[in-house]
């Protein structure tokens, strides 16, 4: 009986005690979806290599810096530069790639700046990331639009994009890469599950005023999903005192409390079963 309880008690206790909020990929109904509770879909290995199909500076260095930033979170994951040769649109080739592209595999970018394709393998209780391709928009065919250069005053004011003097937009390449690499390790948009936090991982305009560095919530997210053991994670644990946060329930299924309640019910069920067994014992003997 103790063994059974030991199995479920950690599920019941682990979601509490964290101080930040974040979201990540989970497997639900045969799909990868965004959630703030459950078992995160992450890389099975500690070291992940990316083919970086960008040689121009400062972009190459920005990508390397973004890899380093995620490596410095203290999470049990290391992103490194690997062999070159794969292109980001070659989905399903088994290579992880980062590249600048003029289009998204046949579509124009519109107002999108970066895109990450995460592929996962789900085998029973195990689910893990198998390949990631990161595409970042190339502005080389659009003379009025550009990526900001280092030291750009507008970027120093923490703006992700601004209207430049040619009437186009200038955007912050390092921040976009930092954001997309967050997806590459399995994190997702906290604002998409009703969280109101400061994070590079927020979607769209929700991250527009963020500095080009990882926030406390981003770092906590990486640490939480890459602990030494794969476990249930609750990305809303630190949100109770924060304004604007709703219940973790969302369109993608139950929130953290639902899973906690399930664990509690299972414990009670096993306790009841155990008590019933003990009550029966004298009769049987």
């Amino acid at each position, binding site marked *: 009986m103790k063994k*059974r309880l030991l199995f479920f008690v950690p599920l019941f206790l682990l979601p509490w005690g964290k101080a930040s909020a974040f979201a990540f990929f989970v497997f639900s109904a045969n799909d990868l979806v965004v959630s703030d509770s459950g078992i995160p879909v992450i890389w099975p290995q500690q070291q992940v290599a990316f083919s970086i199909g960008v040689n121009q500076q400062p972009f190459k260095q920005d990508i390397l810096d973004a890899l380093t930033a995620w490596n410095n979170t203290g999470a049990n994951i290391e992103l490194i530069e690997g062999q070159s040769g794969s292109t980001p649109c070659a989905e399903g080739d088994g290579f992880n790639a980062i590249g600048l592209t003029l289009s998204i595999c046949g579509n124009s970018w519109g107002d999108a700046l970066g895109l990450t394709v995460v592929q996962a393998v789900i085998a029973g209780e195990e689910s893990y990331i198998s390949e990631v391709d990161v595409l970042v928009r190339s502005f080389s065919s659009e003379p009025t639009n550009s990526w900001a250069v280092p030291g750009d005053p507008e970027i120093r004011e923490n703006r992700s994009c601004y209207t430049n003097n040619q009437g186009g937009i200038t955007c912050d390449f390092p921040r976009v890469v930092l954001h997309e690499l967050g997806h590459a390790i399995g994190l997702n948009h906290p604002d998409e599950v009703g969280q109101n936090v400061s994070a590079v991982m927020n979607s769209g305009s929700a991250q527009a005023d963020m500095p080009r560095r990882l926030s406390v919530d981003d770092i906590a997210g990486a640490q939480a999903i890459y602990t030494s053991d794969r476990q249930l994670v609750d990305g809303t644990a630190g949100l109770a005192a924060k304004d604007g946060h709703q219940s973790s329930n969302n369109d993608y299924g139950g929130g953290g409390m639902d899973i906690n309640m399930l664990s509690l019910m299972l414990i009670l069920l096993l306790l009841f079963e155990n008590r019933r067994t003990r009550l029966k014992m004298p009769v049987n003997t």
Partner: protein
Amino acid sequence: MNSYRVVNSLAVGLLVMVFNASAWAFSSVSRDFNALIELADIVLAGTVSASQSKWRDPVEKSFIETYVTLSELEVYKGQVQSETYELRLAGGVIPPYSMRISGSPKLNLSQRYVLFIKDNKQAIFPFVGVHDGIFIVQPQASGGAIMKTLSGDVVIGVIDNSVSKIPANSRSLAENAGMSFTAFRQLIRQRLQDASLDTDKNEKVVP
């Protein structure tokens, strides 16, 4: 009943099933209200009457697109020749396949929206500022409708070209604080008229 056995059986059953899944996630440019007006090819209010996902290439089956039909159109900018308008968005579900793009805008059936559309059927998401160019027209029990952002925040006005909004669950949200659809529509028309006047002024300056 032996619950341990049941749990074990479920676990073993799950172990037998193997799936491959993929998800997309993206980041985008943020646009202010004037940019929404100026950059859009088409600005309209419409109700989603149909939605269908299709393979871009039915043979290759590697990329899913969703075609969304809008009806009951009210066009503020641009030309729409028919009574309905079809949008193309990347991603979708064709059971048992799916291509979900995390953070992508989703338009719900029967919901009415005000949309700032650009590069439809070319761009991965044909909205100015992606999420910024989509507003929900939310009917009120008391009659009329208020405007919400795609994330559900209530629009309370447009100040200095910035859309002011407050979370729908905010305690500070007074009843009827949301900007009405009528006022929002009027604002769009006013800004379009202003932009048109500005263009006229510029044209006069050019010799």
